């Protein structure tokens, strides 16, 4: 099937305004008759639930954490982009649009990206009004810094805790609606199924993580804001609870999964210290404003960094990409770091690391300025590594961080299942094959504050409110199925723990489907994953009896879904016979090692339809048209 994103046509600058006018409206008195379920309370979900509640819809919001304030958006450090052009350095909506299309290696929809760039400015204003304490200069104006893939300063920030402050802004708006009674909040609940009635999304089945109760919630539309899936690699910068589960359950109920092979490996994370490690920690991209990446020129150079003189250092990003230097985009910077390490010039344990050096900036600006800009990051680095980055360079290595792929959605952020909307990292829409720094916060809030409040009306205006009740046969069937699954997990009583199997999956994925993928490695992964899945269903040990608070059961359920999803991710990577953005196939590279796209054969979004576990999924293509930014080789040299 050829998919249609239903993007508005005409001059790109007018697309969103025209579309907003064309969308049907629900009148204020009727809004309260409609119920909307929002799953996840990060930037996208928190903003959506608050905004929809304020509009007058009855909203039920769900999150697995004990409070909506803890969603993993909170961990974003560096900043959020907006095309305000406050520094007068040549920024514009068009430039942000252009940079994002190019940054995504020409694998995103133009109209969606334009809309994102257009509303980026409203978001800053919205957050300021909420009391988000953005960095200001002494005159009281908003301050900016630079991020990768851009030659202008358009990133707004709140120290190294921008995600936290933006999320707390959305959380406070949500809290106001909870108090007003428009939003009912269900913390410590996990979505374990999507309820589809007559082809439309009408509810979800959840497990109450405290009491263990499994029950259905019905609504007139469901909005998934459940984040990304890079925990499929086991070790990533995501929170421990981040999973593909909600998206995967929707996929199994018919929602197409688009471009799962587009995963972002972030260049600057703290290297792994041992097998005991449970997660990896990001060091913000903003550090590359003042930090210089280098590796020793000589192979196996074991000298301390301070003892390696300038002439023996390879500032490889500055050498390879003189015009963007240390602010090359993430996919490019990650591959460059791996290249140094593969050449036996890596540093630290196992040689899997490169230096991020602040000595030059400290000399130029003084330690005080560096401390003011990045103090909390240096502190975090020291806590984890016991090293002082003011005195010696940080050691960094790439780590899984973000997923550009996600559930397929049209221009309205609605999936192919009518009534199922998907926002933020959980959808596939705007980042193409590589996301630029400081654009995730922008997308989450854009979708939540300024897209879904309009587009959901277009759908609801054509549906009858309250069509399905929890007594519906589909709800009962869904609850039975979820209960059956839980019972099955408990009944295995095998020998391996959930985390043993999870680590094994992570190893297969990182080694074969990580930063460099080949036909052979992907086929290895596709052989190993079903084996691990069988082992899981025959030999996992889930302790406890269910019925109450049981973290092993939660983890087992999430791993079970990753064991199915990993196969789709690998299949997508195998089918995409080109390199683009974060998807690097070693067979497809330029003579200088850069990614080689194949626009003739792969200029499309790959949306996969589930045909059941173990069966071949069906591929649907959505061709991508570039009418404003012309397809070109992406260069940062």
């Amino acid at each position: 099937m050829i998919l249609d994103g239903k993007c508005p046509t005409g001059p790109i600058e007018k697309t969103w305004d025209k579309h907003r006018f064309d969308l049907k409206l629900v009148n204020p008195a009727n809004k309260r008759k409609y119920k909307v379920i929002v799953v996840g309370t990060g930037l996208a979900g928190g903003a959506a639930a608050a905004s929809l509640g304020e509009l007058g819809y009855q909203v039920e919001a769900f999150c697995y954490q004990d409070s909506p304030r803890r969603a993993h958006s909170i961990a974003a450090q560096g900043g959020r982009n907006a095309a305000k052009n406050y520094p007068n350095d040549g920024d514009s909506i068009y430039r942000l649009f252009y940079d994002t299309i190019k940054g995504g290696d020409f694998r995103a929809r133009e109209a969606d990206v334009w809309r994102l760039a257009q509303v980026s400015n409203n978001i800053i204003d919205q957050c300021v009004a909420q009391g988000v304490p953005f960095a200001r200069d002494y005159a009281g104006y908003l301050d900016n810094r630079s991020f990768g893939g851009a030659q202008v300063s358009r990133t707004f920030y709140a120290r190294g805790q921008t995600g936290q402050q933006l999320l707390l802004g959305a959380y406070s708006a949500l809290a106001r609606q909870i108090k007003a009674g428009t939003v009912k909040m269900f913390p410590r609940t996990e979505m374990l199924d999507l309820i589809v009635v007559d082809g439309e999304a009408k509810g979800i089945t959840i497990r109450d993580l405290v009491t263990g109760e499994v029950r259905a919630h019905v609504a007139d539309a469901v909005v998934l804001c459940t984040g990304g899936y890079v925990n499929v690699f086991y070790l990533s910068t995501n929170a421990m609870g981040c999973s593909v589960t909600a998206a995967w359950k929707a996929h199994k109920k018919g929602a197409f999964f688009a471009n799962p092979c587009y995963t972002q490996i972030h260049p600057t994370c703290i290297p792994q210290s041992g097998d005991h490690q449970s997660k990896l920690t990001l060091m913000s991209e903003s550090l590359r404003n003042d930090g210089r990446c280098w590796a020793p020129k000589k192979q196996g150079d074991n000298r301390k960094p301070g003892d390696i003189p300038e002439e023996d250092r390879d500032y490889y990003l500055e050498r390879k990409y003189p015009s963007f230097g240390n602010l090359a985009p993430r996919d490019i910077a990650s591959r460059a770091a791996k290249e140094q390490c593969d050449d036996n010039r890596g540093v630290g344990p196992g040689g899997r690391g490169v230096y991020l050096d602040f000595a030059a900036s400290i000399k130029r600006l003084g330690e005080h300025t560096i401390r003011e800009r990045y103090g909390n990051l240096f502190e975090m680095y020291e806590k984890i590594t016991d090293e002082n980055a003011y005195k010696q360079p940080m050691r960094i290595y790439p780590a899984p961080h973000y997923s550009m792929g996600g559930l397929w959605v049209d221009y309205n952020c609605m999936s192919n299942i009518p009534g199922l909307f998907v926002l933020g990292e959980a959808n596939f829409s705007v980042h193409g094959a590589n996301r630029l720094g400081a654009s995730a916060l922008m997308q989450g809030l854009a979708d939540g504050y300024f897209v879904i409040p309009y587009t959901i009306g277009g759908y609801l205006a054509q549906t009858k409110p309250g069509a399905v009740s929890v007594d519906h046969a589909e709800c009962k069937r869904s609850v039975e199925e979820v209960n059956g699954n839980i019972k099955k997990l408990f009944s295995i009583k095998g020998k391996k723990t959930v985390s043993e199997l999870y680590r094994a999956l992570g190893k297969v994925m990182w080694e074969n489907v990580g930063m460099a993928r080949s036909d052979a490695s992907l086929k290895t992964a596709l052989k190993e994953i079903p084996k691990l899945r069988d082992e899981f269903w025959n030999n996992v040990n889930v302790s406890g009896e269910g019925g109450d608070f049981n973290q092993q059961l939660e983890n087992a359920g999430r791993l079970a879904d990753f064991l199915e999803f990993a196969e789709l991710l690998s299949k997508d990577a195998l089918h995409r016979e080109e390199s683009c953005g974060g998807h690097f196939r070693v067979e497809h590279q330029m003579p200088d090692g850069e990614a080689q796209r194949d626009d003739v054969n792969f200029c499309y979004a790959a949306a996969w339809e589930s045909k059941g576990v173990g069966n071949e999924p069906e591929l649907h293509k959505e061709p991508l048209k570039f009418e404003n930014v012309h397809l070109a080789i992406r260069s940062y040299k």
Partner: protein
Amino acid sequence: MNLTLHVWRQKGPNAPGKLETYDAHNVSPDQSFLEMLDEVNEGLIRKGVEPIAFDHDCREGICGMCSQVINGVPHGGQDRTTVCQLHMRSFKDGDNIFIEPWRATAFPIVKDLVVDRGNLDVIIQAGGYTSCHTGGIADGNALLIPKPEADYAMDAAECIGCGACVAGCPNGSAMLFTSAKVAQLAVLPQGKAEAAARVNNMTEALKDCGFGNCTNHYECQASCPKGINVKFIAKLNREYLKAIAS
């Protein structure tokens, strides 16, 4: 290193709880405290013992989910550090470590080391926001906020809502938590319009939720993994007086 752990086990909110003793073997100094507990749990699962339940999520010190009292001190007592960022290099071979949940009337125990902190959300719902609508907002630079005020607001806004201040306080008070939000919004022009109602409503909620009052022990500041300063409590008191007088 090898350690002996004394861990609070409690099946549910109304069940009796007690300290159980477990051994932690071959602990690496580079492990985080929670990774050490992960290993202990793996051992328990293999032995058929139910693993220790504890809250955690981001494991990078920002989500505020982790919540353990270690050797009597919330988050273990390392300066500006959450449990998830506490590393085993700060312990030594042979140590006995006592691990307990947050203890406060307003935080009922869910299971083992997990408590219900929903009351902190209730305090924010009482007024920890500006009542701006989505959309229709003037340009961000239309409102000038001098750097010292922006910095002051940010210092307060760093609170991660973990509840260590409550666990550390002999009165089980959430005054530091509440004051951080009151102070952040009171100093910013966009929060001034509702300042009086906010401080009234939030302190009222504080009482209703069963948190104690503040009697200046400063244990909250000592427990806070983000270094939130008690000066914000003074600011809350000033805001409260202003609200009464107005």
